[in-house]
């Protein structure tokens, strides 16, 4: 039988990670399903398991001048209800799963799972989110976009744990998140889109777009966004066709039991078009 570790403090947790090869489970909403066996049977984990959801230190939300800090084991529901958290992330969480799922799911889990269809990842990429990762002797901060390296692949060493999600505080004129799922709740996205912009005197000070579920990871190209910064709104709107073409390469969805690639690609670009058309 596999061993289960259930630390109650972060120190205990990091010690265990230092000495053992384990699979990390936070809320369990993804892991239990991925590893499920049969009714009445324990979850079919093949390696030892480390349960981190009982560590209170990982459940705090606070801020300083520059950043908002979200403990990696906060429940999505708690994050959604906390006014310190950026609105875009809170709005996204409301569209995720269901109340029951939100009461146990965590950002640690969402990030650790690194699913191409992970909704919370999209606004986090948009907001230049960082993750804090700890091991017994080390702390490091990594940009989320660098941390997730592929489908269900993250830059996490065997002795490390995601401890915080760190979101730079920014102000902007308008933010937008659209989840396109097969129904209005409890659904895995077919595609999703997040955008924000900052406007001053008719000129774009900042503009960002991110697409979810249409490539192996969230699609965001800062260098393309920078081409638009400093331009007048009217100029940007005239460039719509060109901007859509910029994303032709990167929006590479697949066919699966939920939808097809033509739909996913086309609608992603339509959402981008609408977003740009509505800038004011």
């Amino acid at each position, binding site marked *: 039988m596999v061993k289960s570790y259930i630390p109650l403090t972060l120190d205990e947790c990091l010690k265990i990670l230092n000495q053992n090869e384990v699979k990390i489970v936070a809320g369990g909403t993804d892991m239990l399903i991925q590893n499920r*066996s*049969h*009714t*009445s*049977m324990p979850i079919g984990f093949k390696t030892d398991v480390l349960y981190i959801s009982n560590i209170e230190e990982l459940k705090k939300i606070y801020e300083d001048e520059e950043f908002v800090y979200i403990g990696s084991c906060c429940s999505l529901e708690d994050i959604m209800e906390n006014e310190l958290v950026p609105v875009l992330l809170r709005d996204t969480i409301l569209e995720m799963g*269901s109340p029951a799922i939100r009461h146990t799911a965590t950002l640690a889990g969402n990030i650790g799972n690194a699913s191409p269809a992970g909704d919370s990842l999209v606004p986090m990429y948009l907001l230049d989110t960082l993750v804090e990762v700890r091991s017994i002797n080390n702390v490091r901060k990594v940009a989320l976009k660098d941390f997730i390296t592929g489908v269900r692949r993250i830059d996490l060493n065997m002795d490390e744990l995601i401890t915080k999600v760190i979101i730079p505080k920014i102000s902007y004129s308008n933010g937008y998140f*659209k989840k*396109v799922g*097969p*129904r*209005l*709740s*409890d*659904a*895995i996205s077919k595609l999703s889109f997040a955008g924000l912009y900052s406007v001053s005197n008719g000129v774009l000070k900042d503009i960002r777009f991110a697409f979810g579920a249409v490539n192996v990871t969230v699609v965001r190209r800062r260098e393309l966004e920078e081409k638009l910064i400093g331009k007048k709104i009217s100029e940007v709107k005239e460039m719509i066709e060109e901007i859509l073409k910029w994303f032709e390469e990167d929006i590479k969805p697949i066919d699966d*039991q*939920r*939808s*097809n690639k*033509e*739909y996913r690609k*086309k*609608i992603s670009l*339509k*959402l981008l078009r*609408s977003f740009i058309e509505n800038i004011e």
Partner: protein
Amino acid sequence: MFLKDISISINKVDNEDKCSGKAKYVADYKLDGMLYAFTVRSSISKGNILTIEYPELPEGYFVVDHKDVTGKNIVKVIFDDMPVFTTGEITYLYEPISLIIGPEKEVLTDLVKRVKISYQEEEPLFDWTDSVIRYHFDKGEGLKAFENEEKIIFDYETSYQEQAYIETQGFIGYPEKDKVTLLGSIQCPYYVKNAVIQALGVDEDKVRIIQTTVGGAFGGKEEFPSLIGCQLAVAIKKINKPIQLIYEREEDMLVTTKRHPSRVHFEAVIKNNKIYGLKAVVGIDGGANIGLSGVVLSRALIACTGAYSIENLDISGDVFKTNTVPNGAFRGFGAPQMFFAIEMFFEHVAKTLGLDPLEFKLSHLAKQNDYTSTMGIFRDPVLMPEMVDKVIKESGYLAKRAQYEKEEFKGIGMSLFFHGCGFTGSGEQNHIKAKVKLKKDKDKVYILIAAVDMGQGVKTSFRKLVAHILDIDIERVIFDNPDTDFVPDSGPTVASRTMMIVGGIVARAAKEVKERFNEESFVVQKQYEQPDYIKYDEATFKGDAYPAYSWGVNVVEVEVDKDTYQVNVKKTWSVYDIGKAIDERIVMGQADGGLAQGLAYGYLEVMKHKQGKIMQKNMTDYIIPTAMDMCPMETYLFDNPYAYGPYGAKGVGELSLIGGAPAVAMAIEQAIKRKVFKIPVTPEYIMELIDNG
């Protein structure tokens, strides 16, 4: 308790148990020494098993397969093409081969994994080319009406629909000396009993079937449980221990029966702006076993003219056999497929002729004393014109229809439909021969029938019916879950027959009980008596196919998102004639639930197979509506008592599912300004239509 009008609602009698968690469903039972059964299934779609090697079995573990069948290795469902366990031939992916049974699930999981099977694979057939049942009938001039005439032609397609009952399928069972008892989530205790008797080759007193509380069925537990029941009974007979066989969700979705996918080809000849002749060629995909497919096709063909009267018909249909999971009963049973097609056809023909679709439909509406598609007669009043007026008034249909014609991405649609209540033709008299018993014992009266309450409220409505007739308190009327040791065969809980037919017999029995009420203890048994007027020839499709018809109108209003093409159903309005509601609140619940399924069939639920494998195999991938997706619904009932139904009741259960798909499809069609030919009308399909339009 004296109720003035039986329709006045009462609290359902099983609310307490269901709300508190006390109600027991099959997975909630634990028997001492109970073993578990896992199913070994084929991993190919077509071929033969060459060799099968089981791992060495620890003590207390068993394999049960076709060699253990002591009776006939065929599941009793009309045709002899479904084995209890295959003897080697494989006709669909995941076809059951054997059961591995034992006390520990961990061990069973490992044993099943280690079974080694080698196959001689053959090319599976997925195209609809192998017709195993063909029906044809005509009316009036038949094909002659089409000679040298111009025709309007359209083709329609419908897809799988999965019942997605929240409680999956399953049984537990135990031996009692030489008797096998099964408890299960089922609609038809006697279907299961008769199938098990055949599979075991025993006398009828050696099998007992008991219905456990059923967590939803919708037809999915009509004939399919007979297969599980037979397998389990064979296992219990061999091993002589209690055994549980319950499907988890994925297994249930991959292997149980679904709604038949269909293709309908229509041709119409027009004279004086009316459809003078209608030709239909219908195909349904039966999957690997025929099962009830012929009956589903029958019902679909009989519904080919929709709610309309058409003089000349040439109607044919095929059941195609393919190497896919066998399809079966699902609320509506062929009618939802056909009503989608015929309603859209009327809509499209009208548009082709430049006529208003609603006016066009109303000009064809069937009336009392009109001939039906099979030259039967609509003997009872048809209130459809008044029902249409009512729904127009409540929904503002005409104004909205005109307004949305000029707008983008908003639409409203109306469907008109009926459902033939009960079994087709003389099925009741010739096949079912329903019997009921009422037992009076001191101050209690027991309802002894095989009808299953699967949520539709049979327990409440029947106790109410008897209490009302006997003018006694409902607490004195007892109706326990059917147990074949105690109840006669009143027939299956299907075809919207339960209140109309079985209730009708129970009402007659109750009247006799009332006359003899002073006697302390006695039993009244009554049998179905077919009204004289029902004469139907199954072979030629001629005569009165159904004793009565329930009618309905649905109006559905939608908005389609201009960017994502997602469909937002804003509101629905429905009017139904079901004769008489035995309990109005129960009927309203049925109305909401059926329409929710019908709408979702029309725009939301996607199930496809790829090389014979069902692609949507869990509740994450098979999308049914959540509370967030549901719009407000308004429902109105028109009384229209049917002489032979208790208090005038006709069939309720299926009617409300029939009209949702065409109504939502028509609304979407108006919203996107493109003709819709298949369901579900998903955003992906809408994108295709808009791009190619």
